[in-house]
């Protein structure tokens, strides 16, 4: 498929934008990437393609926009069906992957946001505690989903690996800033080891942002948002 047929609007700082990029890599699909500098302004194309949410990522395929990161990943899995599968084949395993992905987005991610925006020490501590607590169920989830293999998806990276793994960049920024280990030997030994494997995977490696660069960006973003208030 011609490269110009597939375009992704994203941002190097966005874990959500990373998800479809990993999926496209898994499927070996060539695509054009447009970096949205959302701190500055949103492009016309972004606003036109995602009028409801005005957010990255947006996949534009043969002129059609697809929005919402996990919906895009499923779309990629369905369109490029000859490549390695991203969702498991069994309906129950698919439901399990979708369940945990929704858990990460709806239950765990808000605690990460709470930490990143917290001003007071107490609020920061509370958010960290919530983040740590929120990660504990993933130990058991990993056991159930991986069935003894390297990834949540089995032998290869799958839907849930992508859904969770995209946050590793920010996770590391928070760990460094807080002097803590959110994924650790005591409570989450399996996800801890998985994180290393995920980060080194060929479909992921070049997409994970450098921790220091991301921390720099965070400072800039915080300064800008404080100035705007």
């Amino acid at each position: 498929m011609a490269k110009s047929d597939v375009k992704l609007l994203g941002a190097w700082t966005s874990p959500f934008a990373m998800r479809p990029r990993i999926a496209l890599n898994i499927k070996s699909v060539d695509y054009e990437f447009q970096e949205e500098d959302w701190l500055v302004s949103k492009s016309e194309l972004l606003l036109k393609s995602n009028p409801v949410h005005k957010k990255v990522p947006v996949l534009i395929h043969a002129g059609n926009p697809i929005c919402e990161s996990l919906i895009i990943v499923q779309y990629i899995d369905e369109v490029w069906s000859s490549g390695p599968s991203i969702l498991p084949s069994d309906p129950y395993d698919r439901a399990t992957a979708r369940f945990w992905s929704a858990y990460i987005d709806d239950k765990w991610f808000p605690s990460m946001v709470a930490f990143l925006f917290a001003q007071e020490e107490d609020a920061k501590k509370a958010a960290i505690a919530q983040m740590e607590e929120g990660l504990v169920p993933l130990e058991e989830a990993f056991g159930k989903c991986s069935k003894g293999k390297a990834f949540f998806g089995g032998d290869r990276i799958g839907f849930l690996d992508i859904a969770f793994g995209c946050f590793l960049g920010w996770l590391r920024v928070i760990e460094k800033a807080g002097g803590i280990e959110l994924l650790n030997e005591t409570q989450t030994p399996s996800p801890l080891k998985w994180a290393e494997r995920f980060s080194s995977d060929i479909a992921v490696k070049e997409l994970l942002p450098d921790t220091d660069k991301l921390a720099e960006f965070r400072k800039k973003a915080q300064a800008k948002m404080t100035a705007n208030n």
Partner: protein
Amino acid sequence: MAEEVKLFGTCGSPFSSRIQVALKLKGISYEYIEEDLTNKSPLLLKYNPIHKKIPVLLHNGKPIVESLVILEYIDETWKANPILPEDPYDRATARFWAKYIDEKCVAAAVKAFWAEEKEREKAVEEACECLKTLEGALKDKKFAGGETLGLVDIAASFIAFWLRSFQEISGVELLTEEKFPDLFKWCEEYVEHPIIKEHLPSRDELIVFVNKRRQNLK
């Protein structure tokens, strides 16, 4: 193969009702177990330890939770009367609108109806924004499946019935014919669909449900 299908639900819940609609649409026999949300059963807590919520679908002893996840599971397991379209782009579109209804519309509407006086105006504004977006989507034929019910139609039962009922109960007006003519008309037709109608609570049942939910939220 002997199939064992059970549904843990609560009368009056839109999320519970949508699973019943899907199972009926597919012609699947199941055992329904009513859960009292103010006194959750040990079985519910066992099958949904993370969220402790209904609905829970139990298929041959395996639990599936979260209504949109359950709907996709049902569609993938029982092939009659598909809920999702075949084309990947249409599927992505359906998933987008179902998610929008659940994450934005339901949340905004619930806030608008039950929020404190001082937060209500803003919540009403947000809820109306959602309805405006849905009105636009309806015009673009993004949902409203016609005679067959699709994922978005099933998810939108909240708008068609619950939201409109809450308006009457609370006196807070959101969806009027003047403001959202197409959506209003769609709602009127939708609640007459036989399978939908069969799984809507009575006014009394709805009031019991609402009161228990508000009790839980305190």
